[in-house]
């Protein structure tokens, strides 16, 4: 909310500078976001001197002035022919600036003549009501200077972020009242002459048909008003607060709204049929063309102000175009009301409409202020529009407001705050907030009608603490039971996984939980794939972020794309995050881990040796990760995932349950995403691991230093290329070999002189006895035996 200091000072004696007031308000819970001068925000409004005035023959209405700002010269066209002459110093609005009446100044061209700015009248400069003369400065005025600096005009305005509970601060007077509470500076009371209530009998009828929606409705008729532009002081204040003027009546309603926080509405009385003002629920489907030019269709939940035939206004939010005040209006009906904040809020949300008026009604206006609003407006209307006749005030107050009685003890205050605050301070503070009754240590408060934020004892504790000063409250350490549980297994495991992968040289990324459905489409998933059953966002920020992810892969691919477009082709990254699937309520959320390797593996560049990532980099990372987690994950070759190259992929299984996949992305998919190959991905459902992990009993096989030496023997053979190494491995694992310690694959070779459909394999077998050193002969015999078995089983030949 904008609060001009000059307006504020009309109601309270300000004893500090605007910066200090900003600080006071901020520290009292009303954050002042900015102290600014609206005049300065208009742009370049500067002093210039006319060098010469030209009247080219092809220009009729205007003359051309050559002007200087002391540095440069430029030309300005003006209609004020008679007022310009060489040597005169004037106010110029340069292109790009705004004038007081919200006119945007641009470079203009008439015929071949260019106009770079506009001379200002005192009115267009926002200084006075004079419109028909140009603003002229004395001869010795410096050129190129801001006209406001020259005139020493300063209009500091506070931009205050009012919290939603303090609707009472959405007005100049409200802020003055709050400053009085905080600083004790003298506040001018609101008072009106008794006579303002009186007038001719009201010729119409006001009826509240929906009491739940409207608690109080005040109306008054003004006849024979003169509609025109508002006087300058109103225009200026609307300008300072950022509101646009319309006509004097509408401006007065806005002026009162800003000053007192009471929204008002003015109707053209002649447009109200049957002279009836009915406050009722809208009919289902009832339509109204509103002031913003939009026709809206109401429901029975909307409250409207209607005449005997139709809805005129969406109550408390916005009026209809037909019943509004225009320059032809003669008789106006003024409304000042108190609507149910919930109704206004829900109605506004339903129609996606927020106005200065609804914003205040939602945040609770002062029920007693409804009358003040009407009277203040009456005062101004009488003064400005000179009506020939006014009616009496009609006040339909169906539900008189009663503030709650809040009871609190000093013990409770001290317990919540954690220290003892003097009783005298409590009492003095509460007295300022309403009607207080003190009985021993118990305080009973009925807050002022404008302080509807005060409802429960805790609200009073905040007021006491706030006015005492948060910084004066001690900072202590709580005394509590010394117990805290270890974090859950999931978190421990996640941390461990992150640390391990970091140790492997991978970088962690965090991507959005919402993804581009197109990226998911490009994965070429089968139609029945669960991952296509995404949860869609009702109001996504863009179509690229419109569905909840069901896989981390699209996000990682986007990261790869972003990097690839910015110099980085080689990546090794991972993410741990949630994926989301539809569920009966909310969503099923699972934590996934995904890894992406792309491009070349980092080696020492000066060794001239680089190589591309391959499948075994990914497999190795996963194997080592699972080993570190003591998980026996089976990597079954040939993944079912359609976006992976079948011959270069695995599905991952733990205890017979599929937990993920790993492999090379198909080139087809990569091309559609504009990504270079090779690119390897893996995704693992950690949620599944968590359940199994808690069941796995981790045992360690303790190995001691050997007592007797080991011996090894190599077995080399040529075997069909088609036979997977895994098959040989599991065959050997099934053999019962005496003294067997371990086996390693030490050579794998394909190519000449080995026939094309064969490969050569060398295995190294290690033997050891715990009791003695083995003899060469017996190890040789073992070697022969194993070799024979392998050769026979796989139809292999020795090499």
């Amino acid at each position, binding site marked *: 909310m904008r609060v001009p200091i000059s307006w504020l000072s009309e109601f309270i004696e300000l004893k500090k500078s605007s910066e200090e007031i900003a600080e006071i308000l901020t*520290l009292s*819970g009303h954050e002042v976001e900015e102290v600014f001068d609206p005049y300065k925000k208009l742009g370049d409004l500067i002093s210039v001197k006319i060098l010469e005035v030209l009247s080219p023959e092809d220009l009729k209405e205007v003359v051309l002035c050559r002007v200087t700002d002391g540095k440069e010269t430029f030309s300005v066209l003006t209609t004020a022919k008679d007022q310009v002459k060489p040597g005169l110093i004037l106010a110029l609005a340069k292109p790009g600036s705004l004038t007081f009446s919200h006119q945007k100044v641009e470079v203009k061209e008439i015929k071949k003549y260019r106009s770079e700015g506009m001379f200002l009248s005192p009115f267009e400069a926002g200084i006075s009501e004079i419109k028909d003369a140009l603003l002229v400065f004395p001869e010795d005025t410096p050129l190129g200077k801001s006209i406001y600096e020259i005139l020493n005009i300063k209009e500091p305005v506070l931009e205050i972020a009012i919290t*939603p*509970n303090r609707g009472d601060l959405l007005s100049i007077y409200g802020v003055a009242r709050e400053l009085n509470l905080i600083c004790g500076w003298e506040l001018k009371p609101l008072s009106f002459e008794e006579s303002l209530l009186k007038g001719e009998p009201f010729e119409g009828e006001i009826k509240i048909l929906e009491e739940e929606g409207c608690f109080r409705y005040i109306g008054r008729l003004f006849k024979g008003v003169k509609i025109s532009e508002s006087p300058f002081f109103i225009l200026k204040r609307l300008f300072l607060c950022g509101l646009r003027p319309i006509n004097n009546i509408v401006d007065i309603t806005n002026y009162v709204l800003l000053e007192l926080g009471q929204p008002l509405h003015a109707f053209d009385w002649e447009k109200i049929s049957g002279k009836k003002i009915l406050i009722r629920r809208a009919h289902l489907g009832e339509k109204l063309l509103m002031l913003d030019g939009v026709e809206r269709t109401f429901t029975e939940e909307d409250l409207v102000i209607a005449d005997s035939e139709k809805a005129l206004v969406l109550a408390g939010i916005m009026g209809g175009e037909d019943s509004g005040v225009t320059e032809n209006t003669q008789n106006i009906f003024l409304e000042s009301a108190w609507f149910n904040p919930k109704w206004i*809020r*829900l109605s506004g949300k339903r129609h996606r409409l927020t106005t200065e008026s609804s914003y205040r009604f939602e*945040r609770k206006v002062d029920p007693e202020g409804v009358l003040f609003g009407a009277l203040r407006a009456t005062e101004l209307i009488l003064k400005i529009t000179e009506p020939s006749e006014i009616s009496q005030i009609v006040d339909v107050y169906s539900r008189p407001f009663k503030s709650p009685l809040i009871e609190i003890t000093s013990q409770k205050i001290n*317990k*919540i705050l*954690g220290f003892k605050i003097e009783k005298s301070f409590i009492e003095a503070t509460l007295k300022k907030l309403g009607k207080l009754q003190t009985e021993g240590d118990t305080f009973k408060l009925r807050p002022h009608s404008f302080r509807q934020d005060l409802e*429960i004892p*805790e*609200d009073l*504790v*905040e007021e006491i603490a*706030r006015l005492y000063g*948060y*910084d004066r*409250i*001690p*900072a*202590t*350490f*709580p005394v*509590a*039971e010394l117990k*805290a549980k270890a*974090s*859950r297994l999931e*978190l421990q495991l996640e941390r461990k996984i*992150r*640390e391990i992968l*970091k*140790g*492997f*040289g991978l*970088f*962690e990324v*965090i*991507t*959005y*939980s*919402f993804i581009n459905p197109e990226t998911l489409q490009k994965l070429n998933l089968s139609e029945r794939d669960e991952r296509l059953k995404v*949860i869609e*966002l009702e*109001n*996504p*920020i863009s179509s690229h972020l419109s569905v*909840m992810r069901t896989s981390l892969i699209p996000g990682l691919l986007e990261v790869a794309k972003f*990097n690839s477009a*910015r110099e*980085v082709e080689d990546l090794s*990254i991972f993410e741990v995050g949630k994926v*989301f699937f*539809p569920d009966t*309520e*909310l*969503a099923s*959320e699972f934590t996934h881990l995904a890894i992406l390797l792309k491009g070349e593996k980092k080696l*020492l560049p000066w060794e001239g040796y680089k190589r591309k990532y391959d499948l075994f980099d990914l497999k190795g990372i996963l194997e080592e990760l699972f080993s570190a987690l003591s998980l026996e994950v089976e990597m079954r070759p040939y993944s079912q995932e359609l976006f992976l190259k079948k011959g270069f992929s695995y599905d991952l299984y733990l205890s017979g349950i599929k937990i993920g996949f790993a492999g090379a992305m198909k080139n087809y998919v990569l091309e559609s995403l504009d990504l270079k190959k090779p690119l390897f991905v893996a995704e693992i459902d950690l949620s599944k691991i968590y359940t199994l992990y808690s069941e796995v009993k981790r045992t360690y096989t303790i190995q001691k230093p050997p007592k007797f030496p080991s011996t090894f023997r190599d077995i080399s053979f040529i075997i069909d290329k088609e036979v997977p190494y895994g098959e040989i491995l599991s065959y050997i694992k099934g053999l019962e070999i005496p003294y067997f310690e371990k086996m390693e694959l030490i050579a794998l070779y394909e190519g000449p002189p080995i026939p094309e459909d064969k490969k050569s394999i060398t295995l190294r077998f290690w033997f050891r006895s715990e009791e003695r050193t083995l003899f060469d002969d017996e190890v040789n015999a073992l070697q022969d035996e194993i070799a024979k078995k392998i050769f026979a089983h796989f139809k292999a030949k020795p090499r």
Partner: protein
Amino acid sequence: MKPEEIEALKEKAFKEFSEAKNLTDLESLRVKYLGKKGEITQALKSLKNLSLEEKRIFGSKINELKELLEELYQERKRVLLLEEEDREKGIDPTLPGRRPDRGALHPLTLVIEEICEIFTRLGFEIVTGPEVESDYYNFTALNIPEWHPARDMQATFYLKNGALLRTHTSPMQIRAMLEKTPPLRIIAPGKVYRCDADVRHSPMFHQVEGLMIDEKTSFSDLKGILSFFAREIFGEKTRVRFRPSYFPFTEPSVEMDISCVICEGKGCRVCSQTGWLEILGAGMVHPEVLKAVNYDTTKWQGFAFGLGVERIAMIKYEIDDIRLFFDNHLYFLESFK
């Protein structure tokens, strides 16, 4: 051989051995003195004409000398061998090393871990919960009914299934209180979502929620714990400031500022010349919230706080654009190695 001659031999040998420049020289000295035809052997041979008594005396002297020379030779050889290696022409030691791979955790993870570490030290338990939430947990149970204007403070993403993406981690207060019995101390880190996107706002960001409920936990305790936290994460010199604020689910409510870490409170661009940086919101848990989880409000009270992880990371690492976190460019990620 006369005693003087033995002395002379000793002196000469000592001098030559100690002057030997390299192993080759040393080897020829060994041959010269200690070899089969060396001077010591010769000297011993020259004794054969002497009397038994003289043989014994001179013999032992020469043998003594021989032992000394052997020792000297070994010593000299050790020194020369060591020197020899130093004379080897090395490689270019200024070339870069062969580093093992080392990645990095995301800066937001680093900050979350640091926050969690501080609070677990204080006996807070880490809990997590769903990111897709119901209107009830995200708003209503937190004393933000449907018509409440405070809903404007949090632009909400709705899902087509009627649920929403949590706009803050505060629903975890409700979930934790329902799940546990007081007293309790929890922190809940996690992702939250709001329809906002610019240099300072990301549609997805992270918060850490904290909650402490006990019989006497007071507003002073809130100040104590949060001031401690600020000094732990931003350094001992950090000053804090508490301002009244408003959250529907706390009363009294407070916002905490820290003295600007860039200018140390003098005023700069980062703190908009105020010298202060807003860092978290907190307050005493609102009785309506305690009622929503059926806690006895006459017995239990406590405080809750919520802090923005990105905000802290941006202050801590002096990052000026929130989007950097989610672009995940490698150069950015490498900054946190």
